[in-house]
């Protein structure tokens, strides 16, 4: 038992150093360098999830692949609510809070959404695509980013059903405090635009 505790502590220290390196520029820009909730208030999901695994899912209202994933994403978020805190992230400046609320309702999302018009979370997560997931472990370290599963192999090359489930595996590993083998598997979908 004590053995396990010790190893976790040393792991945490390394992680903190990494997180600082990654988000140095973010910290310096302070509150304006934050994502926002749908009421427009600055919001930091990492802070909100403090001590718990955090899952960010980047989506777009007008991306068909991202939308087609909605039932899968919602199911994952419901089933794994005890293992991780989930947020939807809408990275396009053009998508208004009203449009996002409507989108969440239409597609049956029941967990919170944040806007990331300045791509703060996009950068922290190294996200490029919608839909794409990012998993931060309990210490706030990015441990996985990439596809949700392998339903799509390429544009126009979709499986009937997914056969690998990278996001679920990443959550599982992060919740158990394990290190992941593959930490980034490229997603297929719609590119997140450059800053608009």
């Amino acid at each position, binding site marked *: 038992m004590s053995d396990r505790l010790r190893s976790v502590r040393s792991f945490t220290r390394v992680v903190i150093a990494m997180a600082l390196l990654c988000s140095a520029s973010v910290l310096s820009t302070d509150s304006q360098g934050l994502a926002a909730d749908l009421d427009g208030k600055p919001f930091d999901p990492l802070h909100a999830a403090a001590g718990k695994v955090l899952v960010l899912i980047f989506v777009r209202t007008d991306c068909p692949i991202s939308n087609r994933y909605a039932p899968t994403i919602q199911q994952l978020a419901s089933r794994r609510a005890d293992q991780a805190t989930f947020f939807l992230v809408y990275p396009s400046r053009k998508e208004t809070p009203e449009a996002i609320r409507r989108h969440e309702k*239409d597609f*049956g999302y029941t967990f919170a959404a944040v806007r990331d018009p300045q791509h703060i979370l996009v950068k922290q997560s190294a996200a490029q695509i919608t839909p794409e997931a990012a998993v931060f472990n309990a210490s706030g370290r990015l441990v996985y980013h990439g596809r949700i599963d392998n339903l799509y192999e390429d544009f126009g090359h979709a499986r009937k*059903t997914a056969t690998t489930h990278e996001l679920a595996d990443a959550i599982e590993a992060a919740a158990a405090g394990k290190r992941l083998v593959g930490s980034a598997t490229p997603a297929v979908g719609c*590119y997140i635009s450059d800053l608009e």
Partner: protein
Amino acid sequence: MTVGPGKLVQSILPLACGMTLTVALGNRTSAQQQTLTQHAPAQSAVTFTRDIAPILYRTCARCHRASEAGPFSLLTYADAKSHARQIAAVTKRRFMPPWLPEPGELKFADELRLSDSEIAPIQAWVEQGSVEGNPSDLPPMPKFAEGWQLGKPDVILKAAQPYALPASGSDNYWNFVFRAPVDRTRWVKAMEIRPGDKRLVHHANVLVDRQQNGRRQEQEPGAGFGGMELTIESEAFDPDSHFLFWKPGSIPYVEPDGMALRLDKDTDLILNAHLQPSGKPETLQPTLGLYFTDKPATQHPILVQLENDRMLDIPAGDKHFVVTDEFTLPVDVDVLAIYPHAHYLGKDLQAIAKFPDGRSETLIHILDWNLNWQAVYRYAQPVKLPKGTTISMNFSYDNSDDNVRNPNDPPQRVRAGNRAVDEMAHLWLQVLPANSVQEKEDPRIPIVEAMARHNLQKNPEDFEAHYNLAALLMGRGETQEAIAHFAQANRIRPNEPTVNNAFGAALLAAGRTEESVPHLTAALNARADYFDARYNLGNALASLGDFRGALAQFQVAVRINPEDANAEANLGSAFAETGDLKQAKLHYERALRLNPNHQLARENLQQLSRGTNPR
């Protein structure tokens, strides 16, 4: 961005060309590549208004605008910038615009294909930061008709019930049955298919169902029914020869004069739709807009089908399984359109015409078949193929794990069938046979006959081929051979009412009346309201002297179809034979009301009047 645009274009171009080389074009000479480089605007930065907007307007805007199939609009600079990286990626991979055939000698109408010299500047534009450019360079936005593309249709048909498409799951196939609201034969020159929310529909086909096959599959009238493929049977010689196809961005096709589609009373139109769940629950209630013409069809195209479903038996894991078929044209034809079809394992689909003089020409070649983007391809100019030309179909299939679309995980042995997990190897060509001056025969008949005989060579147990050949021979008066093929069709499917009726009718025509009765009776046992079988059985019984039996059949027949003058006249005769002259007169008179020129009814009525009124 500090790098000069000229330098950037150069560094990007080889990449763009390289993609094209491997993905789409095969070999290219360096001279051609040189030309490509010159096309790209290398002198100044690529701008939206000058360089990109014309490309988007030509190839993307048709679908990428409000209410169309594209998931977002691509009309303005803001639209394009918001999706810039996506546009670059999907065009470079030639995923968009969706266009499967390789460029070849033969051109298709509405070819939705980007040239290399359009793809390169798109890549450069995005790399350079998606610059807007001078607003005065912007060409006028294309004008699209709102609402019905050909104006208000003469008749609008709406599906009786909406279909609820679930939020998730794999591809979904649904058939909507529309009752054609015509009280007489009409000629349809165009049909606009509005499948509902276009973002949910990959493609849709309308089939003409003259025998109401489809509605028998509905759980309740108007409910529609599931299923990927449809088999529509028709007992009349009138091959379903028009492609009524919808894909995203399609504009309704107006048939030229003399080629309208015949729509009879009691005909159903079946919309077979390939749907894709969107992520939220959706409902679809398609509509069809029909445009009539007074000009009946004088030219009759026909669908030539190549297939080899019998060869389709693909071992699990086979990466390259080839299916072929060859058909030699018995007459000169103009090929108007082509429609290759396979399911999820199809990979390389090719059709070639080998001319009698030894030359050959590729009719269509698809390197990476994608069921989702299947389409009917109409040639820009009819392709003339002389008699003796052999059309060959060469389809290859990938049933390995490498094919991510493989519906079976792990791969399974796959054979031909109508389900999504089965395969198909079909190629349809819409051809217009040249009218031969000397022969009186319908120019389609030699093609139908050649196809049926070819199919029987491939598969002696081909039910449809036996039936079609028999029906055709019957029409030509070759009763003996017709009876032989009806007998084969009847042996293969003993309970098929259509065959039992036609077989019975053929036996009746050959004077083998007693043999006809069991077949006509079987047809009626399978389908009690089968008018033709009632009528034929009435005739058979009358020929055998069983007038009471005949009377009973004709009485039912006129109830099924009260507008058939022949049935009324024969009912009159049956009454006359059984001694009920009053009833006989009544039915002869009805026959004459339905058809004032009915010779038999008139003569018999006159005879009856003389006999019963001895003045």
